[in-house]
Each structure stands twice: as C-alpha cells, then as structure tokens.
C-alpha cells in the first residue's frame, strides 16, 4: 500500500490536497482536503445587504459572476424586489457567457494537459496533423504550414530548456495515449483558446464594465442602462458587437472544442469506466425563460438517485443539510448531526497537524470544507448533473447532443456516469448555451426597440421600504454546479449569511455516516500506474473542475470570537 499525496493540486482555482491509498495499481481509498480559509461570511455580518454581492463575488475570480448572482437573488428574495425582464435577460447573458468561457478554459487550460502530452507533439508530422484536423472539422486554421509553425514554437520552448509553466510535468507517462499528431493539434488549440477566451469575454466588459469581477450587479436589477440611441448605454453598437462575439464563440465551440473533445475521448474510452463517484445528481436549475417565481428554466432543476434516469425528483430546498464530522469546525449539539443552512453554525476548530506537515489525520477532521448532503445523501453537482437531469426531463437539444456524442464514441448511456462522461457533459452544455445566447440578446434588443428600458426595481432600493426582519435564498447554477446563498436581514443589515457552494458538494469530506464525498468516491478504483506520477488521479479530480476558494465558507450566527483555534 502506497500513500500518495498530491498537494498542491494545480490547474484548479484555490488550494486542494488529495491523499490516497494506492495498491495493486489502483486507488483503494481517497481523501479530499481544502487547505485555505478566509471567513467571508463573518466579514459580511452587519453590512449593507446591497453590498453583499461585491464581497461574495470575490469568493472566486475564475467563476467571477456566480456568487454575485446568487447574492442579489438571495437579497431580492428576502426584501421582495422584482427585477424587470431586461435584468433577467442581462443576467442570462452574463451567466451563460461565463459558463461558455469557463468551460472552454477548463477543457484546454486546466484539463487538457492530463490527456495531451506536449513533448510528444514535437515528433508530430505537420502534414498528418493537418489531415487529422481537416478530417474532424472545417475550422480554417488547419493547414500543414499552420501546424508546422506551432510545432516550431513548441520546439523553441523545449530546446531552450525554459519550459516555464510546462516544466517538470508527467510528460512521457505511459497513460498518455494520443498519437503525436493529435497532441500537436490539441497544443495548437490550447494556444488558440488562450486568444479566444480573452476575446470572447469582452462580452462581460459590455455587460459588466470589466472581467474578472464584473461591476454591474444591483439588488433589484442591473446597472447597465439600455438605450439604442445613447453612447453611455447598451446601444445598437454594443448589441452588434455582442452579436458578433456570440457568433464567433459558437463557431469556436462547434468547430474546435467539440471536435477536439470527441477526438481526444476516442483514445480514452476506458475512462468511461472510471470515476463514477456517488451516482446521485443534484440540480437547482437555471436560465429563467420568463419572469416571476414560476418562470420555466431553460436547464431544469431536479434530483437523480443511484444513476436512475427514469426518475427525476423535484428539488426541495429543505432537504439540504451540512455535516462537520470530518471538517475543522464544531457544532454545539455534537458533530454527528446535519444542519440546514438557515440554522447553520460554524465554529472553526483546527485539529489537523501543525505545518509543515506530511500527512493529514484522515480518521479525524481533515478539511476546511463541510459535507453538504441532500436528504442525507452525497450529491454530485455540475455539468454532468445538469445534462443528466435535462436529458431525463426530456430537454430535446440535450437529448440530441448526448445521443450524438455517445454515437460518435460508440458507447452506451452508462458511459455518462464517469470521468469521461463529466468531460463530455461539459462540452455538450457549452454548445447548448452557445446556441442559446443569441436568442436572449435578440429578446433584449426587441424590448429596447419597443421602448422598454427598465433595468431595476427601484421601488425596493431604499432600505426603509424593507421589512424590519426577513430571510431569503438565492439559487444559481454556476459552471461547477448548484450554488445557494441564504441571507437573514435585520434592521437593514446582514444578520447572517451562508453559502453552500458547488465545490463543497463535490470536494467535501466524509460525513457522520462515513459516506465519502463525490471526489473521494470517484477516485476509488481509479488506476495509478506510477504512484510517483499520479496523472490518473488528476484526470478524475480535474473532471469535476475544482474551485476550492468557493468551497470554503463559514457562518457564525451567534457572533462568537473566531480565533479560538486549537492546534494539536
């Protein structure tokens, strides 16, 4: 039995540590630990609820819109503000473009190097690479000369011995299985995607002033004025510019991302047999296609248990609880119970080893993440969950694309419950949303053309119009999955604030019943050819797209001092 530690897990947001027992070339047991804590919810106490979005937004700069959205929704829900239809459309555009950009960046810049060997690309024949690329897509940048240029550039890197961010990696590992030409094609698109993401995200500059950390959110609406004829508003020029960005994004997803995804996946079909995880899937649903609380959602909410696609249960917010049995926190009434976010308490109590340390005590508490559970069960959240719930709920476009992807790879639906399924679901979701963006933009333009320029419910802006005391919840589907914020407002100030975050659902530790979290469960049975170079562990962990800074949070409803940390 070999004890493997991966810390830092790189190509993620935040600080994640994985420990695993490896025996017989496979993971026997695994532990996921978050090693950073800030206490943002404590910082929020006593502040103006209209400011909360800016604070929570800084939970994460990668998914830089998601906590702002969940926060304004929670406060709006509490005070009874009703954002006008244009605010819904502006938010749909912001959220969906975030998801499209984030998923492409994840595939190429955070995940690809687990499957693609850059050094192998050096021995590729540019002509054969061009033939390969042309056989899977009519993307114009697929000439022999183009790939020869990319190969030269990579060669320059390697020959100078200054590999920069590509240094000291697992190049040459036997688990890399792509032929040199496929590697070269992927490396070329890695570089193209760097340019693409920078260009596409300008849509957030139009809709939010800047990216990262857009600055146009308001409790009750959005701050971007709308007027076809005004320079200082979203006008006909900026709408045309956004249309063009959306068209280019869709083109890139269709002609580069999806073909690359299917090409790479075809060499790694065995990964449809690893990484299934907990088999329960939770989705809050997203993208209201109408106004009011009962508006239909473009991607539906729901719960699937035990990989059973025949039944989608409705989501019930009351069934969400969090455990701290293996987290560095204490509950007053004992650490074996689960608490609902509205009743949540968090008293940090670090019982881990004192740094510098080699190993965590995985029998005790071992993470700054709590363990969220739904109806007592660990749930996976994210693109796979969303695509499964949409598929099982009869979403036509999702069904069509899932069928297409499975057909191309020659695998059955059971392949979805895996590391590879997670990767494929993210790509399918990206395409579905890239196709949808233009419709929301057109709807916005139509409203403006009709003279509907409202962007905010100003009737609830002044705190004197709010109830003396109120509570609210805001739900959102972030790129990495189901996100909820719960807020309690008293006398116009935040009395308590709680976030339950996608990476907490996925990366959390074991609960009181000993049930592992989704990362931990997904790693069991994962192959590890060389424990010194646990490339395969990265594959499964990265398939979830970890976002650790998001995952760690804390609430202190009774205003306790927070510095009583014991180090043992």
């Amino acid at each position, binding site marked *: 039995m070999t004890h493997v530690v991966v*810390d830092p897990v790189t190509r993620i947001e935040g600080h994640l540590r994985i420990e695993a027992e490896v025996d017989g070339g496979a993971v026997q047991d695994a532990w996921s630990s978050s090693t950073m804590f800030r206490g943002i919810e404590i910082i929020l106490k006593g502040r103006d609820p209209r400011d909360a979005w800016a604070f929570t937004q800084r939970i994460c700069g990668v998914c830089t819109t998601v906590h702002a959205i969940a926060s304004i929704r929670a406060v709006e829900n509490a005070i009874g503000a009703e954002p006008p239809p244009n605010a819904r459309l502006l938010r749909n555009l912001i959220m969906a473009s975030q998801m499209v950009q984030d998923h492409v960046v994840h595939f190429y810049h955070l995940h690809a190097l687990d499957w693609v060997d850059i050094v192998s690309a050096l021995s590729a024949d540019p002509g054969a690479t061009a033939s390969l690329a042309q056989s899977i897509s009519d993307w114009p940048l697929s000439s022999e000369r183009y790939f020869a240029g990319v190969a030269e550039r990579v060669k320059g890197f390697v020959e100078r011995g200054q590999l920069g961010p590509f240094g000291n990696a*697992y190049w040459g590992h036997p688990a890399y299985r792509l032929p040199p030409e496929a590697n070269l094609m992927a490396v070329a698109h890695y570089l193209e995607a760097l340019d693409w993401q920078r260009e596409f995200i300008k849509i957030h500059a*139009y809709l939010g002033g800047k*990216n990262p950390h857009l600055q146009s959110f308001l409790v009750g609406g959005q701050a971007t004025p709308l007027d076809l004829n005004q320079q200082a508003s979203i006008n006909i020029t900026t709408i045309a510019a956004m249309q063009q960005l959306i068209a280019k994004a869709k083109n890139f997803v269709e002609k580069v991302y999806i073909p690359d995804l299917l090409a790479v996946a075809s060499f790694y079909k065995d990964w449809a047999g690893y990484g299934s995880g907990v088999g329960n899937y939770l989705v809050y649903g997203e993208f209201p296609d109408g106004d009011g609380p009962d508006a239909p959602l473009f991607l539906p909410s729901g719960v699937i248990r035990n990989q059973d696609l025949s039944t989608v249960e409705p989501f019930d917010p009351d069934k969400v609880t969090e455990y701290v049995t293996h987290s560095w926190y204490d509950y007053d009434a004992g650490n074996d119970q689960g608490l609902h976010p509205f009743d949540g308490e968090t008293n940090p109590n670090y019982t881990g080893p*004192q740094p510098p340390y080699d190993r965590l005590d995985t029998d005790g508490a071992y993470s700054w993440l709590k363990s969220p559970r739904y109806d007592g069960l660990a749930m996976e959240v994210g693109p796979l969950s969303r695509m499964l719930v949409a598929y099982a709920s009869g979403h036509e476009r999702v069904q069509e694309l899932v069928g297409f992807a499975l057909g191309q790879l020659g695998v059955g639906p059971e392949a979805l419950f895996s590391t590879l399924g997670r990767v494929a679901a993210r790509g399918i979701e990206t395409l579905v949303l890239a196709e949808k963006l233009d419709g929301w933009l057109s709807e916005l333009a139509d409203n403006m053309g009709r003279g509907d320029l409202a962007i905010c419910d100003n009737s609830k802006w002044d705190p004197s119009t709010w109830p003396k005391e109120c509570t609210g919840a805001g739900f959102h589907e972030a790129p990495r999955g189901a996100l909820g914020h719960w807020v309690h407002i008293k006398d116009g100030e935040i009395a308590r604030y709680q976030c339950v975050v996608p990476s907490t659902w996925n990366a959390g530790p074991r609960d009181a019943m000993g049930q592992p979290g989704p990362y931990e469960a997904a790693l069991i049975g994962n192959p590890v050819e060389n424990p010194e170079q646990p490339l395969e562990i990265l594959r499964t962990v990265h398939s979830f797209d970890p976002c650790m800074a998001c995952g760690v949070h804390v609430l202190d409803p009774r205003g306790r001092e927070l*510095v009583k940390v014991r180090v043992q």
Partner: protein
Amino acid sequence: MAESRNWFLEELERRGVSRRDFLGFCGVMTSVLALPKSVGAQIAEAIENKEKPTLVWLEFQDCAGNSESFLRAGRPNVADIILDVLSVDYHETIMAAAGHQAEEALAKVVEEKAGAYIVVVEGSIPTGANGVYCTIGGKAAIDIAREVCGGAAATIAIGTCAAFGGLPAAAPNPTGALSVADAVPGLKNLINLPACPANVENLVGLVVYYLTFNRFPALDKYRRPLFAYGKSIHDNCERRAHFDAGQYVEDWGDEGHRIGYCLYKKGCKGPVTFQNCPNIGWNENTNWPIGCGHPCIGCAEPDFWDKMTPFYSHLPSFPGFGLHSNVDKVGILATAGVAAAFAAHGFVQLGKRYMHGKQVEAAVEPAAAEPSKQSAPEEKGDQS
C-alpha cells in the same frame, strides 16, 4: 546577447508579428507608462536584448482573479509575447506539474536563481493560528512567502489582497490576514499593484519598465507605480463634466443614467480612488465600471472593503455642492471639498467601521467639509 536577440525576433516572426507591430506596441507602452514617445525605440531595444527572466507566481488567500486578469493580457496582441519573455516557472493555476513535482519547480528557482527572479504574490497571508488557514504542500503560506520573497530580486504584490490585505483582512479579519508588506517586513523592491483585480496592462507596464530601465518606476506612499496610480479616477473620468455641471443619476435606468450623468449620488468613490481605469479601460479598453453605469467602489485603495462601504452611500457633501448651486462655482468648490476631506482623513470613512467584531460608529462627514443644509444634495443616500 546576440543569441537572445535572434531568439526574440524569431519568436515574433513565428507568431506572425511584424517588427512594425512590435514597435507600435512599444509606442502604446510609452503611453501606459506616461513616458515621452521617443522612449518607444529605447523600450524596443531593451526588450529585444533581454534574457528571459524567471518569474514565479504565488497564490495564498486569493480568488485567482488576478491570475485571470493576467490571462486577459492582449493589447496589442504582442503583449502576451512580453509575458512570454518571462519564464513563468511556477503558477498553480496554469502549470502542468502538480504535487511534489510542482514544489520542486519552485524550490529549483529559489535555489538556482537566488536573488535574480521576480515573484508575484496574489492573495493575503493569514498569520492567525500558526498559519493553518492557508497551507500548500503542508507548508504555511507565511513560511513560503518568507522564503520565496526573501530570495527574490523583486516582489510584486498584485491585487488589493496582496497589496493591502484586501477582503480577508476586512473587519473583523477572522484569519489575521496581512498584506505582503506587513507579513514579510523589510523586503527590498516590493511593489504594490492593487485593484480588485489589478489591470493586467499595469502589470505589463511594470514589467516593460523593469526590462527597459533595469529598475522599477517611481512609487507613491503606498508603493504603487505613479504611472498607473498617480491620478484619481475622478480627475480623468469621462463623466466629470456632468459632475461639474451638477448632473447626477438619481435612479437606476433613469434618463440621466442612460445619458451618462455623474454617479456621485449613487455612491461613486472615484474622487478618492487613484488608478488609471478611465485612461486604459478594461479588456483591451472595451469598457470600465463607470462606463457600464455602475459607481467606482474604490478597489485600488487600502482597506476599501471597510472604508468605502456602504458602496451606494455617497461621499460627504461639501460647501457649494449640489443641484441648486451656481453651476460655475460647483466644479472648483467641489474639487476643493473632496481634496479637503481626503486630506483630513486619508480616506473618507463611511457609515460604520467594523473593529474586532464590534461595530463602531465612525465619522461620516469630516468636520472640515461639513455641509450647510441648504447646499447639500437633497438625497443624502442611505447612511445610517
């Protein structure tokens, strides 16, 4: 040196960048750096001749927002070449290696390039509870920072968290979070590039300055480069004329908002925030926060999470200011009033301060700038 010149020019060619484009870029950089245009040629010469310096990028209590900002570098396209001119040997968000192989890459730089590498730090450094609030590879962030920054030629604290403590250090600072300057005192060549996140063009500007002149630029009292933080947002704001004319946004989406009136009454902190957003914009100058209709939140200033909040409460009023004032007088007096308020407190403190979990009422309006009831704006915001 001849070898590295060849390499660089080849690199440009490989990427389809003509020498003309490159010189054009150098010209733009002189603007960002507020240098005479004639320096452009000097910058070009210097960059072409430089060896590839090593850079390591550390993340502590961060959100990776500055790393994401770094990935947005691109105006003009050759800018990412400038970043490639650096050998980025450690950056957790993008590097291929993981685990102990990643740690080895960092250790190698610290050992082999001692005194010669540049370190960028993103995120604050927690000092509470023996450093358990942020560990990487089992080591406390503070220990990593001491070792890596201590051996560097220069340290760039990027973003407000690394520069000033930022969000984790906001009251009541649950984890004892500190800026790099406070956590590792006595560092030589420490430069702060605050803002939430920092604008990548200012990082590029700083690097170009260093490669060109082999020293770092002039700094203000907060160790921020003057070329980027020398003037207030307000002084360069495209909406300044509306401020001077007393034309303000009253309600979100009203006619004034659509026309682009001043956001002062909606809480804009532009008058007390020093950064070049209005000049260089964001995302290759596509837009900036005030350009999209939202007030500045003061994110480049120390303690802005405590001192600039509530974000939607306006700065203190001052004599001669307001809708009923003589338009001719407003601009001059208003500017004087803001300057007086700024001088009196360093910052204008709004609403409540949060100290160690206790809320303390703080001065809302500096005495020096006490408004008369008659001349104050009718709407006083939501200060409680």
